[in-house]
C-alpha cells in the first residue's frame, strides 16, 4: 500500500454510484504486466482511481526550506456509459496542493475538482498531461515535468527534472496492498527529482530550487476492511538513494500490512516485504485544534539482506496537520520530515477516526 491519500478516499466515496442499475466495471490489477512509458505516465481511465503525487523540499534562498505537495487524482465513476451528454461524469479529476512553511508553523493548502470534459478537466492517456481548470501537470518534450497550481494563498510553478530512472515498486510495478492478492496496485516512483521554479506566498514571489519525489499509482481495489489508517514515508537521501516505507494499521494500531523499497544510488532497488519494515514512535504531538495525537517523530527500522538499518524521522515542524472536514474530507497529518542524511515526506492517517473505504 502506498499513497491512499485521504483526499482520494473522500473523492472516491463521492463518485461511487451505489444504486446504478449496471454495476461499474473496472480494470483489474494483475502481476506480471510490464509498464510502458511514456503511455503509463498518462491516465488509465479504466481503473477506478489513479494519482500523480509530488512531495518535496524547496530552498527559498532567504529563509528556511519549505515543504510542498502537489497531487492530481483521477476517479472513474459508475456513470451510465450510454449517457450521450458531454457532462456525463465518467471521470472526475481532483487536485490538492499544500505548502509547509516553518516560519508560519502551519500548512496552507487548496484544491480543485471537476468532472472530465470541455477541456476544463482532462487527463491524457498517452503521456502525463493533466488540466484541471487553472491547475496543470505536464511532461514536456524534453522529459521534464512542469506543474502549475494556484491556491488562494500560494502559487507554485515548478519544473521537475528526473535525474534517475523510474523506480518500479513491488514486483516490477505490481504492488501488494494487503493480505489478499486482489489488494494491489500498479505503482512506480520518480525519486530524486531536481526542482526549479517559482513560489509565491501571499504577495511575495521568489525563485526556488529543491528536490522532490513523485509517486504514480493506479488501482481498482480497496483497502482491507479491518484497516483504519496508514503511515507512509518517502525520502530522498543525500547520497542519491531513495527510500519508501509504509504500514497499514488496524484498530489496535498494529500493522496489518507493510512494505517499502530502498534503492541505493546507481544500484538495483530492494523491495521490502511486510516483515522488513517497522515503524516505532519516538515522540507524539497533540493538535491544539482537533486534540488528535500524532506520532510525528518516528524510528523506521528496515531489515535488509545485509542487516537492519534505522532512520530517525523528525518533522520540519510539528503542526503539519490538515483539517479538511469543511470540504468533506478527513483530519490527517502530512508534512516535510528529515532523516539522517535525507529529506522526505511523512503521511499519517486514521489517527482522528478510522478511515473507511
Amino acid at each position, binding site marked *: 500500500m502506498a499513497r491512499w491519500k485521504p483526499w482520494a478516499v473522500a473523492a472516491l*466515496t*463521492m*463518485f*461511487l*454510484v*451505489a*444504486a*446504478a442499475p449496471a454495476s461499474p466495471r473496472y480494470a483489474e490489477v494483475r502481476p506480471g504486466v510490464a509498464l510502458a512509458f511514456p503511455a503509463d505516465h498518462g491516465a488509465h481511465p479504466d481503473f477506478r482511481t489513479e494519482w500523480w503525487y509530488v512531495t518535496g523540499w524547496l530552498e527559498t534562498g532567504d529563509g528556511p526550506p519549505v515543504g510542498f505537495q502537489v497531487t492530481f487524482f483521477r476517479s472513474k*465513476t*459508475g*456513470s*451510465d456509459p450510454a*449517457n*450521450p*451528454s*458531454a*457532462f*456525463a*461524469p465518467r471521470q*472526475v479529476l481532483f487536485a490538492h496542493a499544500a505548502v509547509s512553511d516553518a516560519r508560519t508553523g502551519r500548512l496552507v493548502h487548496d484544491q480543485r*475538482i*471537476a*468532472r472530465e470534459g*470541455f*477541456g*476544463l478537466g482532462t487527463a491524457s492517456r498517452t503521456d502525463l498531461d493533466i488540466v484541471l*481548470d487553472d491547475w496543470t501537470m505536464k511532461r514536456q518534450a524534453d522529459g521534464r515535468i512542469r506543474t502549475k497550481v494556484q491556491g*488562494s494563498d500560494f502559487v507554485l510553478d515548478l519544473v521537475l527534472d528526473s535525474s534517475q530512472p523510474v523506480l518500479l515498486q513491488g514486483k516490477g510495478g505490481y504492488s501488494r496492498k494487503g493480505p489478499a492478492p486482489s489488494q494491489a496496485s500498479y505503482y512506480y516512483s520518480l525519486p530524486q527529482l531536481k526542482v526549479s521554479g517559482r513560489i509565491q506566498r501571499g504577495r511575495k514571489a521568489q525563485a526556488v530550487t529543491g528536490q522532490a519525489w513523485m509517486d504514480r499509482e493506479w488501482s481498482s481495489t480497496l483497502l482491507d476492511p479491518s484497516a483504519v489508517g496508514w503511515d507512509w514515508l518517502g525520502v530522498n537521501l543525500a547520497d542519491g538513494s531513495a527510500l519508501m516505507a509504509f504500514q497499514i494499521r488496524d484498530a489496535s494500531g498494529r500493522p496489518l500490512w507493510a512494505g517499502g523499497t530502498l534503492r541505493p544510488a546507481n544500484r538495483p532497488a530492494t523491495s521490502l516485504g511486510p516483515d522488513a519494515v517497522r515503524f516505532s514512535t519516538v515522540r507524539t504531538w497533540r493538535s491544539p485544534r482537533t486534540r488528535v495525537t500524532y506520532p510525528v517523530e518516528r524510528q523506521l527500522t528496515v531489515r535488509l539482506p545485509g542487516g537492519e538499518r534505522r532512520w530517525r524521522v523528525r518533522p520540519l515542524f510539528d503542526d503539519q496537520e490538515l483539517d479538511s472536514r469543511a470540504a*468533506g474530507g478527513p483530519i490527517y497529518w502530512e508534512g516535510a520530515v528529515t532523516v539522517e542524511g535525507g529529506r522526505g515526506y511523512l503521511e499519517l492517517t486514521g489517527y482522528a477516526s478510522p478511515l473507511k473505504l
Partner: protein
Amino acid sequence: MPAEALPTGVLRWMILGEWRAHPARVALGALAIAVGVALGFAVHLINTSALSEFSRAIAAVNGDADLQVRAVSARGFDEQLYPRVARLAGVAAVSPVVELTADLGGGPGDRLTLIGLDVLRAAAATPSLVGRGPAEVRFDEGSLFLSDAALRAGGHRVGDTVEVAAGGRPQPFRIVGDLPAAPDGQRIGVIDIAAAQWRFDRVGRLNRLDLKLAEGADPGAVRAAVSALLPPDAEIASPDSEVRQTDNLSRAYRVNLDMLALVALLTGAFLIYSAQSLSVARRRPQFALLQVLGADRRTILIQVLLESVAVGLLGAGLGLAIGLGLAQAALSLFGGDLGGGFFGNVRRPALTFSPGAAAVFGGLGLASALLGGLAPARQAVGAPPAVALKNLGDAVDPRRTPPLVPALGLLVAGALCALLPPVGGLPLFGYVSIALILGGGIAGVPWLARALLSPAQRLAPGAPSLRLALNRLWGAPSQAAVALCGIVASTSLMIAMAVMVTSFRSSVDDWLLQVFPADIYLTYRGDGDGFDEPVRRAMTAAPGVAGIAFLRTTSLRLSAERPPPALVARPDPGGSLPLVGGRASGPPPGLTPVWLSEPAARIYGHRPGDRLLLPLVDPATDKATTAFVMGVWRDYARQQGSIVLEQADYVRLTGDRLVNEAAVDLDPGAAPGAVVARLRAALPERLAGRTLITESRALRALSLRIFDRSFAITYLLEAIAILVGLAGVTATMSAQTLARIKEFGMLRHVGVLRRQIAAMLAAEGALLGAVGGVAGIGLGLAMSQVLIHVVNPQSFHWTMETHLPLSLFAGVAGALIGVSAIAALMTGRRAISQAAVDAVREDW
C-alpha cells in the same frame, strides 16, 4: 414673534372651537386624505411585499451567483459557451445549468423548477443549490433533490420514486435528499446536469451559466468579456434584472391603483379647500377683529394653515393605519398581485413594512391638506380688516365674467402633455395631463356655472324661489365653485376611470369573440409536457370533431430588462388573428413571417413591414433568425407581448414539436358536452388530469369574470371616491347654508314663505348638482381619453375603443342633483326656523 401678540392658547382655542362647531367637515377632509394615503400606501406595501417574495423566489432558483448568462428561449444555448466563459480572467467559478419547467408527478399544478447542475461547479458558484443527501448518489442519473416546498406539495418523502415530466418526457427519479438552502415555499428540484441533458433531450444545450467572480475582479470588465463571447441566443443577466422585469410587468397595474390614490388625495385636497374656504369666509370678521387687536397677518395665516396641517396629520395617520391593514388583508386574501397573476407561481408573501414609504405617503397626505388649505389661508388675510368686518360675502364683483383664460391655459397645457412620450416606461406626462385638465376644469367651473345659468336667468322664471336660486348661483359663482370643486374632482376622476374600464371591458369582450372563434379549447396546464403526435391523432379522430388547430405557447427572451414575450406557434396566424392597423405584404424570401401583439409591437418598437432579429438560431444559416413583421394583432392576455409564428416555422427554428393548446371546431349538430368527454378520453392519464377543456362560451364568460374580479377593487374604490365627494358637497352646502342664515331671516321678514325658502335651497342644490354633473362628466370624458389613448397604451401597451357608460352618466348626474338638493334641503331646516328670523336682529 406673532405668537407673542396672540398667545398660542388663543389659536388652539379658535381651532378647537371651529372643529367642535363643524366636526363633519373636518372629518370628511381627513377621511378623503386618509383614503388617498391608505390606497397609495397599501398598493406600495403589497407590491413591495410581492416583489420581495418574488425576488426570493428568483434568488432561490438562481442560487447566489454574481453574474448570470441566460438563454433567451427555453431551447437554451450551445454548451460550448461554458468552457469559453470558464476560462475568462476574473471568473472564479462557472456552474453550467439546464433549467426546465417541469411537472412533478401527483396532482395537477405541481409545477417545479427543475435544475440540472454539476454539483462540483455549483458548490463553488451557487452553494445554495447543492442538495443534502448521501454523497455516493449525487452523480446518479436517477437522483433527485427536492426543496421542502416541493416535497410537501406532492406529499413526497426522501426515498420515494416520482415521475417528473419536462419537455413532454415523463421520467422516473428517486428522491435522494432535500435542498436545505432553498427558501421556504420555493418548489425546486435538482438533478445532475448530464441526467437533465440526457433524459429530457437537451444534450448539447444549456439554459444558464452561473458565475462566481474572482476576488477583486472588476465586474464591469468581466461582464464585457463575457458578453463578447455570447451567441445571439444567450444574454447576460444579473439576478436582479428578473425582479426588475416583474416590477415592469406589475408596474402597469400599480399605476392604475396609484391613479385611484391620486384621485382620493386630490379629492381630499379639494374637500379641505372647500371646508377651509367656508370656514375662513365665515370667520373673516373674527380674523379682522384679531388683526385689529394686534395679531399680524402671519399669525393668522399660520393659524389657518395649522388647521389644515392638523386635518392632514389626522388623515395621514389614519390613512397609514388603514393602508397597513388593507395591505395585510389584500395579501392574505388575493396574494401579491391582487388577483392579477403577475407574479406567477409565487406563494402569498408576508407583509414588508417600509418606514420610508410610510413617510412618503403620509407626507403626500399632509401636502394635499396643505395645498387645500393654502388658498383659504391667503384669503383669510387677503381682505383689509375694515372691509372684512362688513362681512359682505363675495368680494368679487358678480358682474365680472369669471375668467376663462387660466382654465383654458391649463386645459391646453394638459392636452399638450398628453402628446408627450412616456418617461422610463411610465406615462408620467399622462398623469400630469390629467392633473392639469382637472385643475383647468376646476378653474373653469365658475365660468361654466355662469355660462350654464345665464340662459335660465335671462328667462326669468316666475317662481320666486327658482329666481332667487338662479340669481344667487349666477351672482356668487366663486361660492358655487367652492361648493363644487370637491365634487367635480371626484366625479370627473371617477367618470374617467369608469369610461376607461367600460371601454376596456367592451374591447375585451369584442376581442374574446375574435380570438376564441372555435367551439372548444384545450389547454395543458403544465410546463413540462403536452400533446404529442399520437395524442393529437387520437384527438383529431374523436367523433364530432370537425377540425383541430394545435398551438404551442412558450416564451422568448428579447431583452434582459424586460419580461420575455410569449412565443406562439399556430396554423394560419394571418387569417385567424384579430389584426389592428395595416398589414404588410410578403414576407420577402428568406425571412420568417411573424405577427406581433400590440404590447410586443410597442415595447420593441416594430411596425408591419419591419424586420426583427429573433434570438433563435436558424439551423439553415446557423445565425439568428431574421423575422418579418406581417401585422400587429390585439392581445389583451399577455402584457409582456406575444410573437406569433407559423407552426412550421416554429418547428424548423426550435425543433420543438410539442403542442400545449388546441382549438376544436365541432361537426354541425355535435353536442359540445359529449365531444368534451370524448376528447378527455382521448388523452393519456398523465395529461388528462392537467388538461383544461372548456367550451368557448364558458371561456369567454370566465375571462370576463376574471376581468371584473381584477377590476373589482377599482369599482369599490371608485364608489368610495364618489361617496366621499358627495359627502363633501353635502358638508359644503350645509356650511354655506348656515353662513347665509341672516339672508334667510331677511327674506322671511320681507314676506318669503318658509316653503319658498326650502324650495329655493333645493333649487340651488339641484342646480349646483347639475352644474357639477355637467362639469364632472365633461372633464371626466376628457380625462378618460387621456387614460385610453395615453396612459393605457404607454403603461399596458394596448389600445381600446371608447365605450361610454351612458347609464352611469345618467346615474351620476341624477345622484348629484338629488343628493345636492336633499343636502341643501336638510340643512335648510335651520334656515327657516325662528333662529333665522332672530338672526337679523342686532339686539333684543
